């Protein structure tokens, strides 16, 4: 009787181990698949672009480095100047466009990263501004500052002039 019970328990344990192993394998496959995912699809014409203070070299404003900047992994530009980040509200369309088009992420992911970092003390938190105008003003006047602005749609002056000439 005892032998049978032991046998039953051993087989339960084996099936539990098998279950754990199966879960482990499934997760390993899922993780492997995730490695193939690329960044989110970008809009053909970006609706927002990065802006920075005059003393920030344009070479520094690469997509890779901006991602590190906005996820608070770096506090200084490569030349050693401190970084000051300005952002609009999470719900702002320009903020969303900047996150998607330039950073390749989403506002909600940045927000969660920043919440995690507010208390960990490993980085200084972005300053939220109330408007695009305030953004422009603060980025222009703060050394080492970085922010963004909407990209105005390209105008088509040549087509208008052709029409005018044809009319006269």
């Amino acid at each position, binding site marked *: 009787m005892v032998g049978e019970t032991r046998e039953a328990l051993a087989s339960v344990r084996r099936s539990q181990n098998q279950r754990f192993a199966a879960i482990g394998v499934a997760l390993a496959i899922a993780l492997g698949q995730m490695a193939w*995912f690329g*960044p989110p699809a970008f809009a053909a014409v970006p609706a927002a672009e990065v802006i920075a203070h005059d003393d920030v070299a344009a070479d520094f404003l690469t997509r890779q480095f901006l991602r590190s900047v906005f996820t608070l992994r*770096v506090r200084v530009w490569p030349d050693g100047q401190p970084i000051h980040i300005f952002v609009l509200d999470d719900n702002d369309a320009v903020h969303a466009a900047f996150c998607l088009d330039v950073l390749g992420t989403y506002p909600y992911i940045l927000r969660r990263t920043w919440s*995690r970092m*507010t*208390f960990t*003390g490993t980085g200084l*938190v972005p300053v939220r501004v109330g408007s695009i105008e305030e953004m422009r003003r603060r980025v222009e006047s703060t050394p080492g500052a970085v922010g963004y602005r909407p990209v105005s749609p390209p105008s088509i002056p040549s087509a208008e002039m052709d029409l005018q000439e044809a009319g006269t």
Partner: protein
Amino acid sequence: MNRQGLLIGWIGLCLLTPLDVHGLDLEIHGAMAQGFVSSSGNNLLGPSIQGSNDLFEVALNARTAPIPELLISAQLMARKAGSSDTGELRLDFAQLDYQLYTALDRGAGLRLGRLKNPYGFYNDSRDVVFSRPSITMPSAVYFEGDGLRDLFFASEGAQFYAHWRGQSYASDLVVGVARDFDATEDFQRSLAQSSLDGRVEIRDFALAQWMNEWAGGRYRGGLSYLTAGVLFERNPDGSGPFDRLLLDADIWVLSLQQQSPRSTLTFEYRYSVVGSQPALSGDAESSGEGAYLQYRRLPSANWSWYTRYNLNFQDRGDRDGRDFAAATGQPRHSRFSRDHVLGVDWTPDSHWGLFAEFHYTDGTADVSSQENQGRELKRHWQALILMLAYQF
């Protein structure tokens, strides 16, 4: 320091935050939370069977960057959690973080001081309820119920960190070591109602974490490793019940997360091996494991709900505890825990939060014996935890 004194001091410091201290660009943050626990079957974080408000946390931190590459930050914390934390004010962490190297796609730095331990997704942000995955940390990975929170949270030593990124991924690596330190006071604090007659030392502490992100952060995954020795021995004057007991722990954690606009799905698995000299209860080495799966839904920016299934096994080879019961005559349910959790958070603005969490648990592996001295533990039990919190 009693709770009122702490509250008054904390409010006083809140009022100081607009000040620019000595021309330094000093950034100050704080948080406070009051909890209420009600449970049936076993006590949790206080005498909760009768209803307990013995759960209180307050934290205050400050940071500044005197030169751009150097960030100095420190946090004071007081925490009352039934008999597993006394409410004494302590230095939670104090760190100097120096960015050694910053290139466009990678960087590296060094941290020194009393440093938070990166372990799993949430160990280094467990200090405030707003950045925890739930009111209570998942016991499968984070060992909160054992009163080891302070020992786990931070260690005194050095950490080297590096990050690098490619087109669609970003990686973070941290490697740290801590000096041998006397943990007797920490243990005393976590055994508030009983005293420790002897000395406790943590030695050979080291950790490493490799964390990755893909698709702009939509997927995160990583591996954490922590190793430490815990030495229990007699007092210097020769008194005390321990002759000498050395525990030697190795812990591995696998962490995976998927983030969507309205939800997150998180899975973490912990495998730990503890060796002891001399061997405890016939085994020189025992290996435990735990895992949890948590789904959080965020219908709006102001509120979210979550559900978690959390498993904890003291011994992988004896998950149902029958061998243990046969060998020791003690109930087998102390060797496992299957915890079903449901919670909801309401954060109407960036300062206030109201949190509620319900547990239905099968097993008492996570039940604190200090909290339940002199009573028989119940295998199936439930708990409701509420917390009101404020941060700035």
